[in-house]
């Protein structure tokens, strides 16, 4: 039986120069950071760059981590969030289509149709999420897509839990509005 080291312990060892600890922490947390950057930016390239920069900053500024303010994961999301914001000011996203094109296609006709429908829905959600104002988008991505609690999201976003809750509700309402239009169109076609 192996004992899994906590993120905090890995970070501490990493800061002491332990390369194995750094590798372990990276492997454990890179996926979440990458997906957060991807869902926020909509660009594979930017997500890749932000993930790398996040861990580079962790190497240099990891000593700033304060367990009283949140988890290591939240600390990483906080770094990634700042980097995403900077990128959003400069770069427009354009790569969801390429992500969708890479997906494998199922064999049977039913499966193909089901898969197409599913894919369309997912891509519609992606686009809708990306079209949200960043302040609502980040709350939605953290809580809905990354599964963070209100408390953890509040630490990442550096705001009160109540603010996270209200931003999330507002983001969901905006998202539902964006969803409503295609649904109505589909209904019109059926009629």
């Amino acid at each position, binding site marked *: 039986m192996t004992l899994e080291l906590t993120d905090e312990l890995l970070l501490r060892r990493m800061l002491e*120069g332990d*390369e194995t600890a*750094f*590798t372990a922490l*990276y*492997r454990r947390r*890179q*996926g979440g*950071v*990458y*997906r957060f950057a*991807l*869902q926020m930016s909509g660009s594979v390239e930017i*997500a*890749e760059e932000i*993930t*790398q920069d996040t*861990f*580079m900053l962790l*190497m*240099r500024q990891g000593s700033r981590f304060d367990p009283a303010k949140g988890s290591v994961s939240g600390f990483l999301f906080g770094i990634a969030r700042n980097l995403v914001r900077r990128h959003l000011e400069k770069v427009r996203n354009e790569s969801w289509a390429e992500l969708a094109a890479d997906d494998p296609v199922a064999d049977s006709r039913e499966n193909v149709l089901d898969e197409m429908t*599913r894919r369309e*829905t*997912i891509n*519609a*959600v*992606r686009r809708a*999420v990306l079209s949200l104002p960043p302040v609502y988008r980040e709350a*939605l991505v953290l809580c*809905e*897509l*990354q*599964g963070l609690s209100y408390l953890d999201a509040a630490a990442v976003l550096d705001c009160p839990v109540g603010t996270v*809750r209200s931003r*999330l*509700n507002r983001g*969901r*309402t905006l*998202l*539902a509005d964006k*969803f*409503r239009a295609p649904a109505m169109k589909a209904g019109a076609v059926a009629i």
Partner: protein
Amino acid sequence: MTCAEFQSKVAELGREGIADAAGLHHAELCGGCGALLNEQRRLTAALAALAGDDREFESSAGMEHRLLLAFRENRAAARRAHASAKRIWLAVSAAVAAGVLILMIASEPSRPQAEIAGSPAPRPAIVETPAPPRAQPPRPQIASVEPPKTVVEDSGVRRPLPRRGAPASSDATLASQTLSTEFLPLGAGYIDRNERTQLLRVSIPRSALLSMGIPVRADRMDERVQADVLLGEDGTARAIRFVTTAQYR
């Protein structure tokens, strides 16, 4: 519950599936609010599908390697910075220590030579030392030094070279604990009165005395003898005496 109250919490109802009896009851009665709730539930399902779809997305395989290289470089740079800081600290410490020493020496009142010669020297510290003094021509009784085993330190005392036949060292501390021969001059045997000398306590094998031309009994070849070596400022042995110390026995 009014429609406004329901709509203020519909997102949470749809997201978390909270069993809010009043809210659900209102949604059943109000068609518009019921549709909103269903919309939020569909949204929750769609977001879950998106999260599930993205779950396998990760950064590229090459990134770990790049970051590891950066990590090693950072660590090396940190070590270099640490070593550099340490060197600076040592240099500053040495400068301060030298300054203090100079001040102490400058403020020390000069004493008459006789008093200096008569003052007790500190007890010798025992250390390894490799410095071989000059070889000596054969002498009838006792000898000079060789790569020794033990040693002394800076006596800090300016003293003239003891002459052959003069009484043994006037060092009170040593005299009280040791029996010694006279100092035997080595080499030119000259020491300037103002020269700063060091007294070295050494332990050498008797066999080493042979290399200095001193006769040694074959059956005692493995034994060691102890000696005090007087070193000049240039590090060469100027004189030697052989000692017997209770401490060494």
